[in-house]
């Protein structure tokens, strides 16, 4: 009986939402009905990724030369994988003379890489939040639920 009670209260494992949340940050929450939260997350992650690429160029994501940085970055979703593919296709094959102007050096590379790594790590936190997220529980609705509990 106690096991049945625990299973009934166990939060659902939203595998589909987690996969969607990786494909496009925020999409997991949107798929659960939490549209405002999802769009805010999407805006935040995309803001960091766009800023990172603007500062460091597309060379800011490079799984071959910056493999350790790519581990946090890849949690930012398909857009980060796409940037890496572009980097490998457009920048990596260039001769050294042409590559010099396209590859970020010093702070430009460091900060650009850091921005995208932080976007990936924050999206990882978002994906963790999706594990126990309840369907159709948006920001205002969450407050209403708490108000009900309090009253």
């Amino acid at each position: 009986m106690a096991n049945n009670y625990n299973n009934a209260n166990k939060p659902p494992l939203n595998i589909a939402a987690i996969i969607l949340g990786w494909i496009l940050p925020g999409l997991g929450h949107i798929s659960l009905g939490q549209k405002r939260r999802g769009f805010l997350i999407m805006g935040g992650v995309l803001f960091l990724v766009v800023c990172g690429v603007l500062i460091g160029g597309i060379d800011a994501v490079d799984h071959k030369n910056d493999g350790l940085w790519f581990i946090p970055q890849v949690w930012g979703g398909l857009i980060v994988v796409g940037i890496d593919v572009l980097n490998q296709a457009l920048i990596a094959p260039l001769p050294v003379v042409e590559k010099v102007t396209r590859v970020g050096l010093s702070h430009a590379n460091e900060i650009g890489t850091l921005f995208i790594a932080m976007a990936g790590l924050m999206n990882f936190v978002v994906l963790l939040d999706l594990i126990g997220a309840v369907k159709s529980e948006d920001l205002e609705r969450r407050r209403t639920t708490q108000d009900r509990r309090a009253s």
Partner: protein
Amino acid sequence: MLGWTPFLEPMNAMQSWWYLLLIPLVFGISVIYRALRVEDYAIYWQSVIIMTVQIVLGIGGIAIALGMFVQWVIPLLNQP
């Protein structure tokens, strides 16, 4: 700067003011984190700004403390 191709080439003009990029970095992190944690949407942007200011001031304070330690305290320790 005029020959710069955004997104394809790095923004090398920021080499001298790179530390100011802490502000957009922290702002982006705050937008995501507060979206997960805030319970009342009406105070969302307010809480984002508060979190941004708190982190920037915290990191700025640590930077000043470390700078003072390196510039003043360590030279004092080296004196005979």
